[in-house]
């Protein structure tokens, strides 16, 4: 199938929002940086709204979307409900902040909100796991989506955090590096899954990804821009480049990497046997 750009941006923005909200929950839980609360929560809402808007663009008849309530086991129902619950938790968090709620309450709200956020980041990938498309029929796919949510959240948090301590910056860099390595492992695992997928076909082979028509997308978009450049940015010395600019560049890179992986997924997602 084609690149399905609306779904590419839907899942990328939703993963960004989910990753950042989990980062806010961790921030709240360990009382790290109170200044990030407001701007972080608003950024999560914007990301989820952009994701939701992108998903609507994909639909032929968005005005009939409430019909989805009749089938609570479908992927779209799970995604829609998790976006709604996560969004409500962010709104509750903002409301609690505006009412100067106790730290215990803020911790509780973000902890509760982080659960649907993690489920949502996983679910937007899990919806594509189906036997009809051998390249998608692997659990590596939703874990890769979850992984991209984590790295997107790390960079977004680094941009929004105000005057972080040296200790926090070091910890955050180590965490981001670890998650990027994990994401690289997941990409390798996806290639292994492609190689072992049933009904092998040139249109979805690992060779096609590594050396064929999708090699520029894979090596350029996913490996270099999505993994190596962001990793390199986390190793920069503080004096060499402004930290926020570095984190912004990193976020742009991992977002492009996440989108590139989704585009690749759609392009290798050919059916078992395509008639028409």
């Amino acid at each position, binding site marked *: *199938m*084609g690149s399905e750009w609306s779904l590419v941006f839907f899942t990328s923005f939703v993963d960004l929002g989910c990753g950042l909200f989990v980062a806010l929950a961790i921030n709240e839980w360990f009382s790290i940086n109170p200044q990030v609360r407001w701007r972080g929560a608003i950024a999560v809402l914007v990301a989820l709204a952009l994701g939701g808007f992108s998903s609507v663009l*994909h*639909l*032929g*008849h*968005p005005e*009939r*979307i409430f*019909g*989805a309530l*009749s*089938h609570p086991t*479908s*992927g*779209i*129902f799970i995604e829609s409900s998790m976006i709604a619950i996560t969004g409500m938790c962010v709104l509750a968090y903002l409301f609690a902040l505006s009412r100067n709620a106790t730290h215990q309450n803020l911790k509780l709200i973000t902890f509760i909100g982080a659960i649907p956020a993690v489920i949502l980041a996983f679910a937007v990938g899990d*919806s*594509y796991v*189906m*036997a*009809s*498309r*051998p390249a998608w029929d692997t659990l590596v796919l939703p874990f890769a989506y979850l992984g991209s949510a984590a790295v997107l959240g790390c960079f977004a948090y680094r941009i929004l955090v105000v005057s972080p301590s040296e200790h926090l910056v070091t910890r955050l860099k180590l965490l981001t590096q670890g998650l990027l390595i994990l994401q690289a492992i997941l990409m390798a695992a996806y290639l292994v899954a492609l190689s072992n997928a*049933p*009904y092998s*076909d*040139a*249109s979805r082979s690992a060779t096609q990804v590594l050396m064929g028509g999708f090699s520029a997308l894979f090596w350029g978009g996913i490996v270099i821009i999505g993994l190596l450049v962001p990793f390199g940015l986390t190793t920069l010395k503080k004096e060499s480049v402004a930290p926020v600019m570095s984190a912004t560049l990193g976020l742009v890179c991992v977002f492009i990497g996440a989108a590139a992986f989704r585009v690749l997924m759609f*392009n290798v*997602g*050919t*059916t*078992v*046997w*395509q*008639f*028409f």
Partner: protein
Amino acid sequence: MKNTMVIDLDRCIGCYSCEIACKMENDVALGVYYNKVLTIGPTGTFPDIEQYFLPTICQQCYDAPCVGVCPTGAAYKAADGTVLVNKEICIGCKYCMMACPYGARSFNEAQKVVEKCTLCGHLQAIGEKPACVKVCCSKARTFGDIDDPNSDISKVLREAGSDNIHTLPDSGNHPSVKYILHRKTAAWQATPPKETWRNSNQSGRKGDKQHG
């Protein structure tokens, strides 16, 4: 009850009448198909080469994955076992298109909904057979209830013998459409087909188009 189709590939001459009749009867848009005849082969080495024609349609699966993923219930299985789309409640999310192992569904750009072969339910309602069955000049297509041992379709299958009955690759969807092909005609090719004369640059190997 399970209405489906048996297609005798020993009889099919590749005239494409079924394709055209389907498009005419169902007003299928240009570039879109509910029913398409693929050319399988030639396979083998000259002079021992083989070729057959494979008319493809929705496989009316027993465990249709398109029905399971539909968020609104627009994709459903009727009482006679036919897998259908209720266009009135379809939201056009194309999930069912992703879930179909054969790409047998297409997106109607004008109506913004997904559509597919209905086994000409409107003709069945007035006691007729699907257009592709009616028009087939070599009587290659048989339509009926495969669960009824006395139906024409069951008789055709019994006469063909189990060794000569084939189905398309099954990824857990259990296709109900059966193909009859005797070895004397050609060897059944279980791998995706290569179109030899039409759409050679998009013959199912370059990725599937949702809408032609």
